[in-house]
């Protein structure tokens, strides 16, 4: 649905330029929720703004729904932009227009008949739960309500794609969750392709199917969220995940306090139904190995439960090895840390 080919964006003049993005290749499938995570200044906003050509890339191509947007003239680009909805960190609503008129805005651009606008806006107000607020102005709404208006407005022209530029970064945790749930709802309901950027791993974990990690203008890691989240390869990815679970310092402390000869630190990852099974206790009872839990998480990625335990096995080396083999035989992911 979205395809970026060798996308490069430089800011500034030829002599003094900064490269915000360099040769990005990316594909987002129909109906997918694709997340891009990165630190501040990594190039996330530039990337998502290149997709609807709010920023024109210095080189490379942007394809959306089979159309090369970078090759279009002004008028055609305006037409195709109507099929790409966008929501923003600071909502960017018309402060002089009511909730109703804000949502109707994209429809008035195409001279849609009044009756059609009314029907569409009513449906959208119901979808985002703002029927009672339609005559209010944005200044009278909370942050979460403003973003709901933003989402309704973005959906008004029945877009193929929804772009979210840090859509929850200005919101408190509860409101963030309710907005993320709304995004999941509309993704399911309309099979809408969503691309979002964020600096919070929590957002990726809650809603995304696939994720790309962007660092200094390049993608350093990409894949299904379960894979990237549970087995991060790049340093930057690890930082994001450690911040979300337990701090990296706590992990170091845990590893250093148990560094005895007769023990082995092992990270075990459970995924899906395994998460709630008693596999670990069954196996250690069989091998006679004892364990201490140094660190542990049991949570979900989107709807998928997972658990990740860092344990220290104590006992005879051969028994510990047998424990590890048995764990692997049960299709658990086991990583020996020392």
């Amino acid at each position: 649905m979205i395809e970026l080919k060798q996308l490069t964006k430089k800011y500034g003049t030829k002599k003094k330029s900064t490269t915000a993005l360099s040769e990005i290749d990316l594909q987002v499938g129909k109906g997918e929720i694709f997340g891009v995570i990165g630190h501040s200044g990594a190039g996330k906003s530039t990337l998502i703004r290149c997709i609807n050509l709010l920023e024109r890339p210095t080189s490379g191509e942007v394809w959306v729904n089979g159309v090369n947007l970078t090759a279009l003239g002004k008028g055609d680009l305006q037409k195709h932009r109507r099929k790409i909805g966008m929501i923003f960190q600071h909502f960017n609503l018309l402060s002089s227009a009511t909730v109703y008129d804000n949502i109707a805005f994209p429809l008035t651009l195409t001279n849609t008949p009044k009756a059609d606008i009314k029907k569409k806006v009513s449906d959208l107000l119901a979808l985002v739960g703002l029927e009672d607020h339609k005559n209010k102005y944005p200044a009278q709404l909370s942050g979460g309500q403003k973003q709901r208006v933003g989402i309704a407005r973005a959906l008004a022209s029945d877009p193929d794609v929804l772009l979210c530029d840090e859509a929850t970064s200005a919101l408190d945790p509860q409101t963030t969750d309710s907005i993320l749930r709304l995004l999941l709802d509309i993704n399911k309901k309309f099979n809408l392709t969503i691309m979002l950027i964020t600096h919070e791993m929590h957002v990726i974990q809650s809603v995304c199917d696939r994720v790309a990690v962007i660092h200094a203008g390049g993608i350093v890691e990409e894949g299904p969220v379960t894979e990237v989240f549970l087995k991060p390869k790049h340093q930057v990815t690890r930082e994001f995940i450690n911040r979300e679970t337990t701090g990296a310092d706590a992990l170091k402390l845990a590893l250093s306090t148990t560094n005895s000869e007769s023990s082995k630190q092992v990270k075990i990852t459970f995924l899906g139904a395994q998460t709630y099974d008693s596999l670990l206790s069954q196996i250690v009872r069989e091998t006679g190995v004892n364990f201490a839990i140094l660190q542990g998480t049991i949570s979900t990625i989107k709807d998928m439960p997972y658990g990740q335990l860092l344990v220290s096995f104590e006992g005879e080396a051969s028994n510990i090895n047998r424990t590890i083999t048995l764990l692997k035989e049960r299709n658990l992911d086991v990583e020996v840390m020392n």
Partner: protein
Amino acid sequence: MWGLDFSMVDWEEMSQAAIDTLKMLGASALLTFIIGLPLGVLLFITARSNSALLRFIYRILSFIVNILRSVPFVILIVALIPITRAIFGVSIGVEGTIPPLVIGAAPFFARLVETALREVDRGVIEAATSMGASTFQIIRKVLLPESMPGLIAGMTITVVTLVSYTAMAGMVGGGGLGDLAIRYGYQRYEKEVMIVAVILMIVLVQLLQMIGDRLVAHFTRK
């Protein structure tokens, strides 16, 4: 009171002068808005354009506006006498004051428009762009409504400025309250007429400012 005798004020002349002032003010304000608003929008759009040609146009427009704004209004009136004659066939009277008033005030108002438009949140303009709005649609549906309070404040300042301009235009024969005040007060030492004329102008300015402030408050949604 203070040796003033208001019985000698010719009220008929006074009301004619007041009507003349309102005529000059109404006509010049209307034309100033009609010319200044598009000019201000043009200044705003060309200033931030990506196209080098449009930015060049901005520099030229900006230069002309600055020149017109730096010429003292009295000099502008005198300098424009030939042009006024060409348009109206007269260079004095109420009609004769319109060209200098408009040429003096329109660049001023255009700058106020430009400043008001700059106050519009960039993000909102960007959101409209992302929804496929054309430049014209952005002007009509985003820039103008969003800057309405600023535009009305700018109009108020412009009209009030025009009140003092009409007084100066009166000096070179345009008529109106300012003309009356100067003729009687300065040339004939009849303070009473001057005082009444000045009070009327003060009341006018207060009224205009009050209406402007009310409208600004009405359109402010932030």
